[in-house]
């Protein structure tokens, strides 16, 4: 940090020249401090007996008490398992779907048709989970819902889809895909559009048909994007989607549907056990961080593509 006087004077001059830009940034710097860094500092309530008057730093020290409480809770094993199972299902089934959609759309030559399908596929992304769940309730109800009426036309008995453990995971994964497939395909469409057309020409000359071109040119072309998005998705493995699960999980499905996020929100905000809930949340964040770092490293070793 030792600078010559001339250098530091020049630096100060440059800062002064940019004073207006610091002024533009100032509210943002304060905002990020209050809404991001103060909560980060506040993570310590997980190690304290939080009281409102004591706040982040004044509440008495509790050590690992709340972590023990969580791991001794008879359902904690279930909750962790459910979180991982639901995230994995979403990842394994949900992740390839936008890629498949992008590949199929890419083969369409009629531009108007392609644009229409794309526009329609973005629609569910723009509505809230409340709307999605309300739609599902209405469409899937065994009492006069169109889906069950269709099934009935084929002679099937009405099915109780919601609040039913048998259908719970299908509903969770299905609604997740329905809501996000179009939106998530945007980035893959962009990656496909960025592939050098000469590669296709070369493949054609080598006698490759549609499928071989897809396999040898298109898929490798979107590989890097897919790896990056996969790393990010694995980093989120410990959060199974709290909005969706807050709304779709009920008493009937609790044993397979309780997840970490929802457990933290309910025990913290609803029951007021803030320190306990903060401990659950911290556990979740730390595992998430470890996951993302691990997958990032593996990806870098195997494929030379990594997030950071």
């Amino acid at each position: 940090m030792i600078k010559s006087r001339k250098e530091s004077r020049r630096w100060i001059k440059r800062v002064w020249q940019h004073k207006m830009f610091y002024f533009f940034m100032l509210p943002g710097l304060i905002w990020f401090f209050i809404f991001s860094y103060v909560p980060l500092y506040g993570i310590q309530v997980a190690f304290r007996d939080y009281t409102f008057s004591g706040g982040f730093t004044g509440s008495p020290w509790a050590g690992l008490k709340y972590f023990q409480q969580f791991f001794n809770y008879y359902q904690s094993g279930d909750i962790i398992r459910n979180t991982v199972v639901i995230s994995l299902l979403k990842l394994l089934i949900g992740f390839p779907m936008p890629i498949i959609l992008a590949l199929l759309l890419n083969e369409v030559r009629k531009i108007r048709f392609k644009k229409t399908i794309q526009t329609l596929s973005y629609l569910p992304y723009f509505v809230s989970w409340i709307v999605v769940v309300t739609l599902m309730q209405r469409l899937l109800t065994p009492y006069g819902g169109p889906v069950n009426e269709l099934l009935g036309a084929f002679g099937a008995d009405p099915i109780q889809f919601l609040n039913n453990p048998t259908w719970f995971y299908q509903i969770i994964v299905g609604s997740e895909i329905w809501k996000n497939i179009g939106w998530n395909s945007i980035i893959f469409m962009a990656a496909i559009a960025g592939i050098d057309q000469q590669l296709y020409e070369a493949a054609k000359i080598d006698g490759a048909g549609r499928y071989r071109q897809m396999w040898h040119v298109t898929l490798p072309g979107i590989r890097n994007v897919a790896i990056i998005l996969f790393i990010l998705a694995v980093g989120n493995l410990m959060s199974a989607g709290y909005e969706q699960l807050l709304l779709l999980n009920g008493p009937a499905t609790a044993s397979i549907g309780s997840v970490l996020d929802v457990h933290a929100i309910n025990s913290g905000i609803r029951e007021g056990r803030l320190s306990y809930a903060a401990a659950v949340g911290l556990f979740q964040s730390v595992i998430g961080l470890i996951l993302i770092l691990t997958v990032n490293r593996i990806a870098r070793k195997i494929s030379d593509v990594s997030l950071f």
Partner: protein
Amino acid sequence: MNRRWSVFSVVNYTLLTLVGFAMIYPFIYILAYSLNDGKDSMQGAIYFLPRKFTLENYAQVFDNARIWKAYQITLMRTVLGTFLHVTLCTLMAYALSKRTLPGRSFFTFYIFLPTIFSAGFIPFFITLQKLQLINTFWVYIFPLLYNFMHIIIIRTFLQGIPEELEESARIDGYGDFQIFLKIILPLSGPVLATISLFIGVAHWNDWFAGAYYVSNKDLIPVQTLLQEMLSEAEALSNSMQRAAQQGGQTVGSVSGAGATPESLRMALLVITVFPILCIYPFLQRYFVKGVMIGSVKG
């Protein structure tokens, strides 16, 4: 064109048509349901068009004081929240787009760091409590003032504006703020539209804050109202419908006209979804670009 390709083509078009149908059909269905007489709808068998057309459901929804209030809250937070978010993020992005700004990479890292490791709900909630934002209208606004990804998207866009434009404006005697207002802003239409859509939709769709940070009934937005109706409505409509479908006098008891909680709920849903449906297709060109920048830089 060989034969195998045309088989593929047929399958592909069929598949994609089904996808498109699956995306739009639920909305067609609730539109039909909301335009149909509530009691009549309980017999089921409504698919694309209302059977017994009525505007009664909408009339009752618009007549409901609580729904009006909630709609006002949603509109207010969306308009105010979007305006503030876009203004503040753009100012910050403009500063960060200056390559000559001392400390630029430090500030970028400063706003990036919280995206890798978040504190979780509870410390955030406690912060809101300490700021005395809980149970006020401002709990909808303040937490959504900035967003790292949005700042980066705007910054990337601004960096594409030729610097000569600014230089010549500076020679004409414009100050930094004037350049921002008269040169930068008018050229940023597409990216501002994109970010407005993103944040506007986030405000419009947020039910969580209303459900967990607010208990005052006058401050509940529409989405939270819908959420409160979820569980009530399901139980109610199922039992009504069960009664309607069983019991010999089915036709007699359901043939009366009038709205039901379920038909009102569908009307409310249509009103909630409609504004978004009208806006997003027109911004498609822009937000597709925004998503690309966001993911490349992220």
